[in-house]
């Protein structure tokens, strides 16, 4: 069916293959090592393995020139796929580093297996060019995540979180699947790049196309936690193990955006105005709700949950602009956001495991307990707020620039207002960290080596992306350009 398998085809799914191998290795060593010997070794294996995969991906599979469809049109090998695969692998590795020292999580083989499996799904999401492939990828991503969210079986909140995520996920996926089936019914094809032509044949009522688009948007909206499909996010983030929440809010969201952008541009180019309007409305609602609700949060994970909802709103601005600059800014924003939010959850995980609380008030005196953790906090939150020289600033500028270019000045202004609200609550957290005193501020806060490594890596990446942004922008730009080529 695929014809002969050549090296390009292998290269196109090399990260996925390697991830599968790594999963297998983890599975074997999980059994091979005794519980007591195991300690962090599985974590190091995962992290190291993803590191190697990242390098291989980077040097071996970087696509050159035109985008190509492979594996019978199932897989699209373009820069878009490449960028999101790299992100997923990177996020999985960092999450492993951060999770290593979390009790009941870091020494469990199944955690890493689920994590890697989910990463495989994300890689595929980035490169799927077919409805069926897409659905499979989404499910491969989601099902391990449902389990991961409920990983702490003894913890009611975690269990609730996993279950809630599952129920929401199942329902929205079902609606999305319905949308997929409609598309197939309308056109008789499942290939994304063939669908557009089918829909454009003129025999279909516009309403039908819009309706199926809407249904698909429900599924994607769930993945990127856009309002009104965001209800799961705060509860799940709060209940899930913190590194998992970080992974959920970044890699999963980035992958969601990747398919959203790809599907909208590839399948629905003729109704750009309609989905543009819908997404604009979603964007405004998402930003505004995320930010305003985040203002009142007392729990840092819930606050980050709402903030990540808000960030989805900013990214949507770029999608709405739907021009080359807009899509490039979306990709760039996701790179910046992934790094930043991983760092934010990373710090919360590290600090939370020591102070035993996720209340914002519990962070008082942190700056006196640990320079490193508080600096990481500073970098993460300022980057979220959009302050140079951190990645968040450049990302925001280009998203707003895209809106201005597309004559959506009103949208840019709403975004700007939201950014200002965001500044407020991010700064409040920093104030607690740096200003307030606590009784045990003279006790140093230990940070384990893998955690330190992850945090330092993320901080450095954020600064690098925020200052030397040309190469990253180059990737984003090529990725976006690839989407506009039919």
């Amino acid at each position, binding site marked *: 069916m695929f014809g002969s398998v050549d090296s390009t085809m292998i290269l196109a799914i090399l990260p996925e293959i390697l991830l599968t191998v790594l999963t297998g290795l983890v599975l074997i060593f999980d059994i091979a090592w005794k519980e007591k010997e195991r300690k962090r070794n599985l974590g190091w294996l995962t992290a190291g393995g993803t590191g190697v995969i990242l390098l291989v991906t980077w040097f071996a599979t970087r696509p050159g020139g035109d985008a190509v469809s492979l594996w019978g049109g199932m897989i699209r090998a373009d820069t878009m796929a490449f960028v999101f695969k790299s992100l997923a692998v990177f996020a999985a590795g960092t999450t492993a580093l951060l999770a290593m020292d979390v009790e009941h999580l870091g020494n469990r083989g199944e955690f890493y297996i689920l994590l890697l499996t989910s990463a495989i799904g994300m890689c595929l999401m980035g490169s799927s060019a077919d409805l069926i492939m897409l659905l499979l990828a989404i499910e491969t991503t989601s099902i391990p995540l449902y389990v991961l969210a409920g990983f702490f079986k003894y913890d009611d909140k975690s269990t609730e979180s996993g279950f809630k995520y599952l129920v929401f996920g199942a329902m929205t996926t079902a609606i999305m699947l319905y949308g997929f089936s409609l598309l197939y019914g309308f056109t008789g094809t499942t290939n994304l790049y063939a669908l557009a032509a089918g829909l454009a044949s003129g025999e279909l009522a516009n309403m039908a196309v819009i309706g199926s688009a809407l249904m698909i948007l429900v599924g994607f909206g769930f993945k990127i936690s856009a309002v009104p499909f965001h209800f799961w996010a705060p509860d799940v983030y709060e209940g899930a193990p913190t590194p998992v929440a970080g992974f959920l809010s970044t890699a999963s969201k980035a992958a969601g955006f990747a398919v959203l952008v790809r599907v909208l541009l590839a399948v629905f180019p003729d109704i750009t105005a309609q989905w543009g309007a819908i997404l604009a409305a979603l964007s405004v609602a998402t930003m505004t709700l995320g930010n305003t609700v985040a203002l009142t949060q007392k729990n840092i994970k819930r606050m980050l949950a709402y903030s990540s909802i808000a960030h989805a709103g900013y990214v949507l601005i770029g999608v709405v602009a739907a021009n080359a600059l807009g899509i490039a800014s979306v990709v760039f924003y996701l790179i910046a956001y992934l790094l930043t939010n991983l760092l934010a959850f990373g710090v919360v995980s590290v600090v939370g495991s020591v102070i035993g609380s996720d209340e914002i008030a519990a962070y008082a005196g942190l700056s*006196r307990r640990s320079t490193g953790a508080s600096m990481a906090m500073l970098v993460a939150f300022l980057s979220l707020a959009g302050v*140079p020289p951190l990645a968040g600033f450049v990302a925001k500028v280009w998203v707003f*620039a895209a809106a201005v270019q597309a004559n959506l000045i009103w949208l840019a202004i709403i975004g700007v207002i939201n950014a200002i609200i965001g*500044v407020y609550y991010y*700064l409040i957290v920093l104030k607690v960290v740096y*200003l307030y005193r606590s009784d045990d501020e003279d006790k140093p806060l230990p940070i384990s080596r893998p955690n330190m490594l992850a945090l330092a890596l993320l901080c450095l990446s954020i600064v690098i992306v925020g200052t030397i942004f040309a190469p990253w922008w*180059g990737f984003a730009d090529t990725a976006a350009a690839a989407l506009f080529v039919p």
Partner: protein
Amino acid sequence: MQFPILSVIVFTPLVTGILLMFIPGDRKNEIRVAALGAAGFALLLSLWVYFGYNHLAGGYQYVEKYNWLPALGVSYFVGVDGMNAPLVLLTGVVMFTGVLISWGIDDRPREFFAFLFILATGVFGVFVALDMFMLFFFYEIAVFPMYLLIALWGWKVTREYAAMKLTLYLFIGSVVSLVGALAMYFQSGLNTFDMLALEEAGFSTQFQVFWFPFVFLGFAVLGGIFPFHNWSPDGHVAAPTAVSMFHAGVLMKLGAFAALRVGMMLLPEGAQAWMPALIFFALVNVVYGAFIAMVQTDFKYVIGYSSVSHMGLVMLGLATLNKTGFVGAGLQMFSHGVMTALFFAAVGMVYDRAHTREIPKLGGMSKEMPLVAVAFIVGGLVSMGMPGFSGFIAEFPIFMGVWTSGSSPINTNWPYVGWVGPLIAVVAVISIVITASYIMRIVRRVFFGELPAEFHDHIGDVTALDKVALVVLVVIMVSMGWFPRLIAPLVESGVNNVLRLFGGA
């Protein structure tokens, strides 16, 4: 290749700030010495830039340009002309004296200096930026450390409120400008943020008139323009001494300067169209600020509002859109920066010893700290525009500019009767009397008179480092007052560069 002096100036504080974080936090003296060394280095380099600038040749000098994001026309593009060279020097001076005066900070000095230096990098970066994106980049860097500096080391009573208010005001201002700047970027169709190229973009009048208020006001918020000046006195009062110095001394100029560089220079026709409103707001700043300063009882609030009033003069000078007005505004930026740094330094020294800033509770400080009294008096004379001090040199051309603002050839496109300029000058001059009265009141109540009994034991003279800082500032103000040729020709050459865009020469 020539020595990249501007880049070295811009990044010296940043690198120092990062390196400081690697010194163990309890080695406070090493940290202070390192900070002072870096500040001294930056000051020397900025002196070099200042005196090395050839004002006869004019134009941008010490230019460096590197691609940053070529796809979107972003470059790292720096250079100085006569307008910003003094401001670079000002930053160097304030940074240096600020470090000297902060010697006594004992709570986490490492973090304090690190944040202060990041702020300084932002300020230097904005002053030398010739690329609009870069300008915003550094502008934001300059705004945010302020929050932490005020919230962490500020006056306990209002610091949280003031820090947040300040940050939000400035952030709102900057993003509003940013939207305007992006609009210019796309409208020009040049795909570049290079401001020298955008100057030639030839925006339509309609476009300029629409976007000018966004860009100008967004920045002018940081310049303390009425009615968006509210953050400034609160922020100044709550901030620790060195930060107040930096803030009033340099950051407010950042706003005015960016408003000029991005707002007026890129949208000259917009500036002309909005000129009456600008003059009006600036006038309100000048007079209203002075009146409010007069009724304050908190020493530091007086100075805070006086900054609002004096920054109004900068705006007034800019709003005249003629040569003398611009020259005055340029000089006033420098003069006010030094003066207000001195004021806040003096206030800080009094407060550190008396632990109150209520004017009625103070008195007789001149007996205990004579040099502070002398320095404050000199600052006061500068602020009331006394001839022989820098304030006069700066204010005089501003007023001259106002006189002719109505009859200048570039402003003929709107109905502006001749006597308005003189009228504004006459009204604005009231502020001089008011300034004189509140300065004299402070001098009398705080520095002279009886030393209250409660202070008898614990008030002593300031440290030698404090004295060095004060003397440096005083010397600058007096020498500028007597030798305007040290700075005026430089500013004049910078102004010619600005006027070129207004069709004058």
